[in-house]
């Protein structure tokens, strides 16, 4: 009876899944606010404006990020540095920097466009607000302080895991040219304020081999 064989094959799949789910080995869902999953290293989360280790801002107000933004959600205006007390090591700095998080599609093109690695992305995505005004992140909210701490809009809320702001920035490393054979294992970015320092990703073949067994964790 071919029909019954086929039927039994299908029933075995669902029945087996049921038993494994009840036993807990195949449960996919996590009860989100109670437990959170490890995010992929290159996760596109909330933006942050970086500083150099000496406390200078990386942003030079060039507006390339605003130009690259496909959603037109970035508004930047540059101003000349005060020669006595410069804000950034260049000629100019971004004195207005706003990102409308309601428009942002988290594509990361701003990160790619930035010539000084001033804007990068973190792992934080819990950014819901109760009004539109709060969704527009200004310079004060985006810029890290001199010791590398990133401000959080609602630091007291349960969902605001501040560690996620620390875990930038696999994405920036990915856009650095270490994918090219000549730059494999070479650090292609400048340090940022705070204790964070990122190592270059291992060469591609090694990285591929290492990531394969853990693929389902990032899926």
């Amino acid at each position, binding site marked *: 009876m071919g029909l019954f064989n086929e039927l039994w094959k299908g029933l075995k799949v*669902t029945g087996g*899944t049921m038993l494994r789910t009840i036993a807990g080995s195949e449960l996919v869902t996590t009860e989100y606010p109670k437990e959170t999953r490890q995010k992929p290293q290159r996760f596109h989360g909330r933006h942050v404006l970086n500083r150099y280790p000496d406390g200078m801002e990386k942003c030079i107000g060039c507006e390339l990020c605003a130009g690259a933004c496909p959603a037109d959600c970035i508004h930047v205006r540059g101003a000349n540095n005060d020669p006595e007390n410069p804000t950034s090591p260049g000629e100019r700095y971004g004195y207005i920097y706003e990102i409308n998080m309601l428009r942002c599609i988290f594509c990361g093109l701003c990160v790619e466009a930035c010539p000084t690695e001033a804007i990068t992305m973190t792992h934080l995505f819990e950014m819901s607000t109760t009004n539109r005004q709060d969704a527009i992140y200004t310079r004060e909210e985006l810029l890290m302080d001199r010791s590398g701490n990133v401000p959080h809009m609602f630091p007291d809320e349960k969902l605001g895991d501040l560690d996620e702001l620390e875990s930038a920035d696999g994405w920036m490393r990915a856009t650095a040219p270490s994918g090219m054979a000549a730059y494999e294992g070479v650090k292609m970015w400048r340090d940022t304020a705070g204790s964070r320092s990122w190592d270059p990703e291992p060469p591609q073949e090694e990285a591929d081999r290492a990531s394969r067994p853990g693929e389902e964790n990032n899926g």
Partner: protein
Amino acid sequence: MTWAEFGVVVLRVVLTFGLLMVLTILNVWLERKLLADMQSRIGPNRAGPFGILQTVADGLKLFFKESITPRKVELGMYVLAPFLAVIPAFLIFMMVPWGAPFMIGDQEVILQGADLNIGLLFILAMSSMAVYAVVLAGWSSGSKYPLIGGVRATAQAISYEAAMGLSMVAVVMFTATQGDGGTLSLSEIVNRQAGTWGDVIPVLQPVLQFVPRWNIFPQIVAFVIFFVAIVAETNRAPFDLVEAEQEIVGGFHTEYSGMRFAMFFLAEYVNIFSMSAIAATLFLGGWNGPTFDDVLPGFISALLPTVYFLLKTYAIVFLFFWIRATLPRLRYDQLMTLGWKRLIPGALGWLVLSTFVIAFRQFGLPWS
């Protein structure tokens, strides 16, 4: 009729109704939970322990929602259809004996809504009535998707009711040989499945004396056909063309909302349970099972038949859920092919075959 008799009747009807309501509410939760397990999800787990009160919460929500009446409906039929769905669904279960009879004083209490001598016929009639609800709901909604759903329901019900009836006939004929004359009463069919097959074939007696005297063993083909037919009768996946969400929105209940929709929903789950109960009664021996009268205290052995009945019924209910999680919906022509070219000829063939066997066992070869 004395007051005592009247009280017993009221008691057993209320008991049956209460059992059905409670179990239906649990079944909705159970299905969602099992379906979630089969899809590696968690399922409802917010309302009450393990989410067991989810259906109560959903029911309360639906109760307080507006029952929208679209402008183009045929109002009378539109309002009547949900009741036509619920009432036959409950009446079907009233026929099913769900526990062993016991005595209160000198009154015998049968755990069954009503013990009609035409029980099976009544069940067939009521399950045909349930189709009217779907058809009328589809037609009176004044909208194309419900109409398509209603038309599909007509065709599907006619096709599969034939197969269901024919497989029942085989069981009824077989039951007639098991006792004193033919019967359509469900309690009598259950009584005739008591005991084991030990005395049938003397050679195999040592083995067969442990096999319960259920109709499923001699009537396995009828059981398979009956099961497929009841899945189709209750409009469950993979035969849920009537309410195929992906093609025709919600089918016949597209235009229904609030309590009216809840009644269709309730009727569907009541039907699943009562059809499974009928399958358990006809083929799996109903509430029959070892009661260990001499070992266990009296009230436990009085309750055990109900436990056996529920176990058997839930085995079939679980099959419903399992198949829903496994099989994709049939195409319309496949549905008709399965019904008319496989199930009905199969049921007829089986009926003829079992008739021959029964006649042979009773009368011997015609030329001898």
